[in-house]
């Protein structure tokens, strides 16, 4: 609504709301809504960071309590996956388990691309039946994309938010089942683009597979495996 004309009272109310959010006082639905507002507004993010850092000065008052011995083993089994018993394991497997975890977690990501396909001319019935969408986002990142598989060998990407990062590139990955992520190439941020899907990715593309975007060195990952942080991901859903 108003821009730059906020009254002191509006600003105070907004700041108090962010403080309530950081304290955890908001009921769950509202907590999540405010979380999304904060992610999309740098003033609110700064306000959140302000409160978080000031309140964290109270952390000394949490008294230390040694947890029971058996917890670490259980944590390692969950964090590292089944391979924990076999001792030191190659980085490849660590990576694989990390990505399996992500694939499972991403299934919970809400898909908010309803209606997107209405923009696309449907060539024939068979292409309609193979249309797939994914909404890509990640907590703590402002990079958001909507991906649409057009049924004709292309994934069309629309950036909803996010800025280019100097000397880095965004790289798109397909995660299918328990396999290593497969690179779909470097993608531009802040504009629409289209990525031709290779036959191996196409074979596994469907409901339950996951698309993810990582921040990689300029030109993309040199070895075909993701190294950078995940800035957005989402489960593929049929529409």
């Amino acid at each position, binding site marked *: 609504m108003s821009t730059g004309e906020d009254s002191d009272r509006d600003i105070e109310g907004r700041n108090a709301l962010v*403080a309530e959010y950081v304290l955890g006082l908001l009921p*769950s639905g509202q907590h999540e809504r405010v979380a999304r507002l904060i992610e999309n*507004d740098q003033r609110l993010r700064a306000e959140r960071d302000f409160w978080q*850092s000031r309140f964290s000065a109270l952390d000394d008052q949490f008294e230390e309590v040694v947890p029971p011995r058996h917890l670490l083993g259980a944590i390692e089994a969950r964090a590292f996956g089944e391979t924990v018993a076999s001792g030191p394991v190659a980085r490849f497997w660590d990576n694989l388990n990390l990505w399996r975890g992500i694939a499972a977690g991403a299934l919970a990501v809400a898909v908010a691309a309803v209606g997107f396909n209405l923009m696309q001319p449907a060539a024939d019935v068979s292409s309609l039946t193979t249309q797939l969408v994914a909404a890509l986002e990640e907590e703590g990142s402002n990079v958001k994309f909507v991906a649409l598989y057009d049924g004709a060998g292309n994934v069309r990407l629309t950036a909803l938010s996010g800025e280019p990062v100097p000397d880095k590139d965004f790289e798109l990955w397909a995660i299918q089942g328990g396999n290593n992520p497969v690179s779909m190439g470097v993608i531009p941020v802040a504009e629409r683009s289209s990525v031709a899907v290779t036959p191996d990715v196409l074979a596994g593309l469907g409901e339950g597979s996951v698309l993810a975007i990582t921040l990689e060195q300029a030109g993309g990952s040199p070895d075909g495996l993701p190294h950078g942080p995940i800035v957005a991901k989402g489960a593929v859903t049929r529409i």
Partner: protein
Amino acid sequence: MAMTQTPSQDIAELISRCALRDRAAFRLLYERTSAKLFGVTLRILRDRSEAEEAVQEVYVKIWQRADRYVAGTTSPISWLVAVARNHSLDVLRARRPPSDDIDEAIDIADSGPSPERATQDNQQRGQIENCLGTLEPDRADAVRGAYLDGYSYEELASRYAVPLNTMRTWLRRSLIKLKDCLSA
């Protein structure tokens, strides 16, 4: 070596090594910090078996999200405590019955100029207590109770024997006052 590093730098380094999938670093991080984080989940959840479950989930999250920690923006132990505290609050929220939203006085249209990043935590040590000291004692305690014990508005209202809306008004005013003091 250890003498040349502060404990905080040690913890930051362990978190970075977790981001590189270093399991030995993860074990060491757990040894150094688990008593603190278990203290957080136990205090907020007030149930030993729930707190044990929560602290396990917290460390799995730390392992998975170690790459999100940006050294220099927050102290590493504050970051870890925030992961534990936020997870515990999520557990509490899921447990509570749904309640009405609180009035959202919020305008998100204008991004405005980039504000300065929050300054280092150690400068704020003592400052929060000084500023809480400017509030009426029971209101300062309510703020502490929300942060340290995860009390909801309902719980705070019943602890201080005031209606829910009164509690909200009290606390929001206190937070506005606190912000003025902390920004001064």
